[in-house]
């Protein structure tokens, strides 16, 4: 059987050779076992670096904006008549393609500037879950075979059922096939039902105000403000971010808990109508801050109040970019 990985390599090679793309963004082996990192390929002979497996965590749409924006900046030194656009190829799962749709709706680049190589996705492995499953034993190597993960740890071999260590967002994912693509590699997979999609929100809402605030402050107290979540988020593509602005200085650079809380609240709120629940922010967080419980609420409200799902179609306008006369108004205060 020809794997998706080999097909991706073949397709990438032919696209690069034919000059249909100038740049390819995919995944390659990282330096640690079972960790895959983004890779950037310009020469057809380098495609052997490409991999695709359930350890590919990052949402690659982030790097599409990075590559296109830095290319655009370089082009400033070129005479206007000689300026050229670069076409970026990207290996895209469901969530990556949704992020690209959001970029396109927000007019960050043209549809012609990106070639989407769609890949099916059955979810990726949450390394935190896997480590907890192995009682913190050091992972030396591992591979996936028929839904089972064979891992070699420092103390011997072990078997883990893949579905037990998949990331939370993947378990309830409705969009595991790309929503837009130019080439589809591999077969489309059956979408997950995602019945419990908003269960985390329902459960959290059951708690009292005090418990919710306590949970929020406890989680945010872990945050060291490394901004890894922002750097990994495909929707956080602003060249100048509010956390670094000095006029006005939105967020104080102190250790006061309120500054961290404010940073997190604002970053979370910037995700209104733009979060595709790809899980990149949670995956890269070195402190394991639970961001998903809060992000999911934004997703839930967008769906419940405005019937909007971020990035599922190029026809549907952005949540905050549009309005309706009949939008809910029950929160408006009217004096007696």
């Amino acid at each position, binding site marked *: 059987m020809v794997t998706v990985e080999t097909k991706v390599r073949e397709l990438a090679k032919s696209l690069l050779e034919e000059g249909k793309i100038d740049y390819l963004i995919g995944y390659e082996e990282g330096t640690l076992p079972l960790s895959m990192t983004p890779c950037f390929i310009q020469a057809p002979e380098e495609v052997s670096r490409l991999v695709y497996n359930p350890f590919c965590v990052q949402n690659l749409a982030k790097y599409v904006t990075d590559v296109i924006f830095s290319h655009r900046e370089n082009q400033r030194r070129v005479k206007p008549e000689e300026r050229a656009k670069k076409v970026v190829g990207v290996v895209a799962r469901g969530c990556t393609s949704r992020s690209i749709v959001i970029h396109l709706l927000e007019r960050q680049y043209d549809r012609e500037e990106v070639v989407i190589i769609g890949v099916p996705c059955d979810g990726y492995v949450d390394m935190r879950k896997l480590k907890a499953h192995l009682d913190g034993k050091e992972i030396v190597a591992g591979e996936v075979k028929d839904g089972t993960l064979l891992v070699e740890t420092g103390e011997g071999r072990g078997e883990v059922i893949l579905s037990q260590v998949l990331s939370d967002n993947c378990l309830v994912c409705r969009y595991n096939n790309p929503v837009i693509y130019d080439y589809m590699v591999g077969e489309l997979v059956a979408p997950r039902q995602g019945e419990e999609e908003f269960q985390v929100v329902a459960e959290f809402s059951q708690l009292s105000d005090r418990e919710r605030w306590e949970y929020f402050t406890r989680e945010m107290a872990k945050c060291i403000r490394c901004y890894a979540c922002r750097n990994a988020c495909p929707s956080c593509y602003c060249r100048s971010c509010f956390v670094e602005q000095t006029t006005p200085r939105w967020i104080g650079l102190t250790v006061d808990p309120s500054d961290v809380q404010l940073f997190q609240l604002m970053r979370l709120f910037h995700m209104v109508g733009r979060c595709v629940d790809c899980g990149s922010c949670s995956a890269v967080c070195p402190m394991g801050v639970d961001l998903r419980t809060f992000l999911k609420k*934004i997703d839930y409200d967008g769906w419940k109040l405005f019937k909007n799902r971020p990035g599922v179609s190029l026809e549907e306008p952005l949540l905050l970019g549009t309005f309706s006369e009949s939008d809910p*108004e029950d*929160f408006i205060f009217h004096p007696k």
Partner: protein
Amino acid sequence: MDEAKEKIWEPKIVAIVCNWCTYAGADLAGISRIQYPPNVRIMRVPCTGRINPFYILKALQEGADGVLISGCHPGECHYLTGNLIARRKFAMLKSFLTYVGLEGDRTVFTWVSASEGERFAKVIRQVTEAIRAIGPARKLVKGS
């Protein structure tokens, strides 16, 4: 000490109002000599659609006990749709702040038109009383 502080505590409310309706409404309340509590600090913006949710959170962090947002009634916006776009944003914001455990009642959204001086005074009176009932802000406040 704390008890004495509580006694003299007066709610501090930041009102972010639009230039075309509510600010004129407040002006009308003033020239008509309608009395309302002095707890409110008015900040004028061109349109409610221009209000960054950050203003609201920043006000709460810097010590405001309540934030009042007021603009033109839907359909009466000077810029035609600014308040309708703002309405969506605020619906999301209020729900989100309540969800994380902040008192959602500290942020109040309303519409006051330029001819509604009496309504403006009423809003300020009732919001001040509502914030007074909730008490001083303790969450998200810097240095607390």
